[in-house]
Structures are given as C-alpha cells and as structure tokens.
C-alpha cells in the first residue's frame, strides 16, 4: 500500500553510524577471519592447484596472479552477503532493532538504505586490508610477477564498496522474503556458492562454449571479478562496462527490498 518510498540520506546515515559505532568495538576480531579466508584460497588454489597448471598460466599470468583480484571481489560478496542476511535478519526479527529505530524520525526505507551502505563499507574495509596484504605478499615473494601491479588498484576499495552494496541489495531482498533463518542455506548454496565458483575467479568463463559466457554476463559477481582484475592489472577500458552493469543492476533492484522491508515494519 502507498507510494514508493525514497530513503532520506540523513536517516540512512544514522543507521550506518549505529553499525559503525558497534563495529569500532570489535573490528579486530571481526576482520581477522575475513583476511584469513582469501589467503587460504590463495594458498590452496593459487599455490597448490596452480603448481599443476602449465607454465604460461592464464592470459600470460601465473595462476596465483590470475585468481588474486577475483578473490577480492568474492571477499566483498561474502562480507556483504553475511551482513545483509544473518545480521539483518537478527536485527529485523530477533533483536527487533529496526522496530526501535523506526519509532524515531528514521523510517524503514532509511534503515534499508543505511544497511546497504554499511554492508558496502564493511566489504570495502575487509577488501582493503586484503588488498594491502596481496600487494605486500606479491612484491615480497614474486617481485617479477607481483599480484597487484598497477596504480589503478587504488580504485579497488571504492569498487569493493559498490560491489558490497550490490550484494547487500540481493541479500536484503532474500531477507525481506523469508521468515526462518535456516532458509539462508538456499541462498548461500544456490546463489552465493555458484557465483563464487562460476564467475571467472578460478578459470576464464569466456573460453567456454556458448551459452556459458552469455549466462555469466547476466550474473553480478562476474562483472565484479572483471572490474577488480582490470583495476589490479592496469588501465583497462572494459572495466567501465562492468562498472556500468553493476550500477544499473544495483540501481534497478535496490528499491525492491526497500518496499518489502517497509511492509515488514509498518503494517
């Protein structure tokens, strides 16, 4: 019922600020596993599996060079997905934090927008730490083949923020539709994991026969991976196309969870 609600930036900022206040208390313990996980992938896939991949690697890169930027993108996806699924669910239905917030001048639509921004922020924070680590490790161990080789990589943190917002919109959409927390198994098994495996992080999707590359084009992480890889390796005009895809997809979808979440909070 009612017209489409557009979030107020001020209200959204207040919600973002609430999350930031809490995050400041435990950021060390929260960030640690998130650093660690991509490093495990890098070790297992990059060094372990990579050792079996013929010299010459992929597109002239070593295997570990190839997968490192993609892991930045998937790290942002995981960070934003956890934030917008389990964390948001608890705030919505268990701790009822949103009920408390929406009795103030902050409206439900502001809450959702604030959560998008926060998930993006968290993705960017985690990713920046991980990016720094990749840069250092690359120059320390394989200076002839660094993992991050371009100044354009400085644009990766803001890119991760946008990627985080995109996956927050998707996660929030799912959260707004479910009543039981165990249903996230479907979201992670049927959405997040396939995206992780088939978005060109571990192998180039483009070299598969049709319609695999065409299908990949319609999925969000594929573009996030391309964008991060393009920025890690230097100027690549194709990044603009991926960024545009991400912005259009995120923009088009973003108001849907806003309206559904409003109905969860205002009857």
């Amino acid at each position, binding site marked *: 019922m009612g017209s489409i609600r557009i979030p107020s930036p001020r209200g959204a900022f207040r919600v973002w*600020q609430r999350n930031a206040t809490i995050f400041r208390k435990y950021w060390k313990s929260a960030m640690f596993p998130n650093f660690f996980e991509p490093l495990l992938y890098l070790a297992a896939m990059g060094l372990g599996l990579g050792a079996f991949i013929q010299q010459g690697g992929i597109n002239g890169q070593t295997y570990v060079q190839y997968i490192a930027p993609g892991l930045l993108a998937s790290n942002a996806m995981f960070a934003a997905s956890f934030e917008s699924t389990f964390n948001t669910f608890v705030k919505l239905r268990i701790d009822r934090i949103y009920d*408390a917030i929406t009795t103030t001048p902050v*409206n439900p639509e502001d809450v959702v927008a604030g959560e998008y921004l926060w998930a993006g922020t968290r993705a960017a924070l985690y990713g920046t730490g991980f990016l720094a680590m990749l840069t250092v490790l690359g120059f320390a161990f394989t200076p002839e083949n660094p993992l991050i080789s371009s100044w354009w990589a400085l644009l990766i943190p803001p890119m991760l923020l946008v990627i985080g917002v995109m996956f927050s919109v998707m996660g929030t959409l799912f959260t707004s539709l479910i009543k039981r927390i165990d249903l996230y198994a479907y979201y992670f098994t049927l959405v997040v994991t396939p995206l992780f495996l088939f978005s060109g992080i571990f192998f180039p999707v483009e070299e598969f026969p049709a319609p695999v590359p065409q299908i990949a084009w319609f999925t969000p992480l594929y573009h996030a991976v391309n964008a991060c890889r393009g920025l890690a390796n230097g100027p690549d005009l194709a990044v603009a196309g991926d960024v545009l895809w991400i912005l259009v997809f995120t923009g088009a979808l973003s108001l849907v969870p806003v309206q559904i979440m409003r109905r969860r909070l205002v009857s």
Partner: protein
Amino acid sequence: MNTETRTKRGGVGEKSTLVAHGLRKSYGEFEAVKGLDFEVFPGECFGFLGPNGAGKTTTMRMIYGAAIPTSGTLSVVGLDVRGNERAIKRRIGVVPQENNLDDDLKVRENLLVYGRYFDMPKKAALRRADELLDFVQLTEKSNADVSELSGGMKRRLLIARALINDPDLVVLDEPTTGLDPQARHLVWDKMRDLVREGKTLILTTHYMEEAARLCNRLVIMEDGHIIAGGVPEEMVEEHVSPQVLEFRAAPEALEKLRPVLQEAADDVETGATGEALLAFTHDSDAVLDRVRRSGFTVENTVYRQSSLEDVFLRLTGRSLTD
C-alpha cells in the same frame, strides 16, 4: 459514554494531543480496531484498559506510525498521521511492549545512539542521557551491558530512551507487564513524575490497578471497540454500586444463593471463573443479613470496594485478565 471530561490541565481551547474519529484497522479479513473515537489533552495520563486482543496495541501502533489506519482519522500532536510520520515521530516517545534495546551497545550508548536518530547534537545528547539515567535510577549501570540488566531495569531504560528527544507525548504499551511488584511500583513512580512534569502520557494495560492509579481518564476496550470511558472513579460510580460482596461456594450452592442476592443486592454477576457470585450493593450489611436469614452459611465471603475490574465485568460479563 463520557470521554469528553476535561482534566484540570486540558482546558477547553487547548490543542488536543491526540484525536481519533472512526478509527479502524483491518488486517485482511480480521478487524483489529473497529471504529474508535477518543481525544487526549495535553498533560493528561490517558489509559487504554482492556484484555489481550482488545486492539490496544494496534491503536498504539497507529499512533507511532507502525500501522496505517484502514479508515477514520487520527491526529497526533496536532498532525494527521497520514503524510506526517517523520514529523510526528520526532515529537513522541515510545516505550514498546517487547524489549528492543540494542544489545550491542552499553546502557548509556543506547541512549546516545537513539539521540542520533533524532539528530541531537552530541553534547546535548550526552547531557540528556545522564539526566535520564539519573531519573530512571540507572546511573550506576551506565557502562553495563544491556544483557546484565534485570527486567525492571530494562523497562526503565526503555522509558529513558523514549524521553531522549523530550517528547510532547509518551506512548507506553503495557509498561509493567511481566515485572515483579517492586519493579512495577518503581515504573509507576517514574510515570507519575512524568505526569507531574506536565508530560502527556498514554498507556495500555490490562491491569485495572495500574489504570486506576495512574490515569486521569481512560477508555475500556473490548474486541476492537471502546465500550466505556471517563475518569476512573466516576466510571466506577456510574457503572457499579460502591460495595462488592464475593461469595464462594460449590456451583449448586451458588445457584440457590442467586435468587436471594438478586432480591437483596443492586446487581449480581457471576465471577470470572464461575465459582463465585458478586453482589453489588450500597449496603453490604443489609445484604449479608438477608443471606444469613436465608440459611446460607456465610464462611467464604470477601467484602471490598468496587473497582474498574467490576466495571469491565458488568459491561462484558467477563474478567479483564483472563
């Protein structure tokens, strides 16, 4: 129905804090609120008394924007609830039925972060938070985790939180439900302080005693309707005789007693559990005398003053708390 009685503070011409006309709310087929009319004046403590499921919480939710009326009008602090939700929420404070404090924040932080939702400047929020912690006697717990608080302390913190923006109207939904008697009295003290300060309070409750102690005026709700309203003492006077005799005995004995009472007392009601007869009268001695003369052994009889509970029983034939 006399819901228009003005209190000392709410004089004629003063702008009403709350006005509802023909207010309705349906959820699909289910109609939770079926046409309410009421008016609350500045400085009043106004109660919504009724059993669970009467529509009290739905009415509160419409006041603070968590539910949208299906029809009728509702204005809060002089503003129509349709299209003014932010402006209204800026000027009211809400104490919800269920605790929804922020467990990730300390006691004092709960107030400070809440103040930010109202765009309060940091300095003002700090000052206000400390005043309020003092007011609800939680200063010592300022840096405690919310999870360390008892139920009564949490409720007091919720009250403090609702006051952070110095609201014109405070909405309290079942403010003492689930609290032990001591904690309940402390909450009542705080509410009385607020009324004394001139705040306008509305509260829902299914405790007759709470409504009678705190409210200048109240309405009794049942099944989505307001079935009576007014000043508590006047309502008792209007609807029931001042004295009540409760007779407890086996059902067969009570049935024999009933005609005797019907003759001697003003009104006779069956108690909520069906194991008692309530005789309403102006002269309890005369009634007791008649009962004795009828041969009924009076051993399990309670004498008391009539109360709002009895008003509810008279009007609905049911008890408030079942």
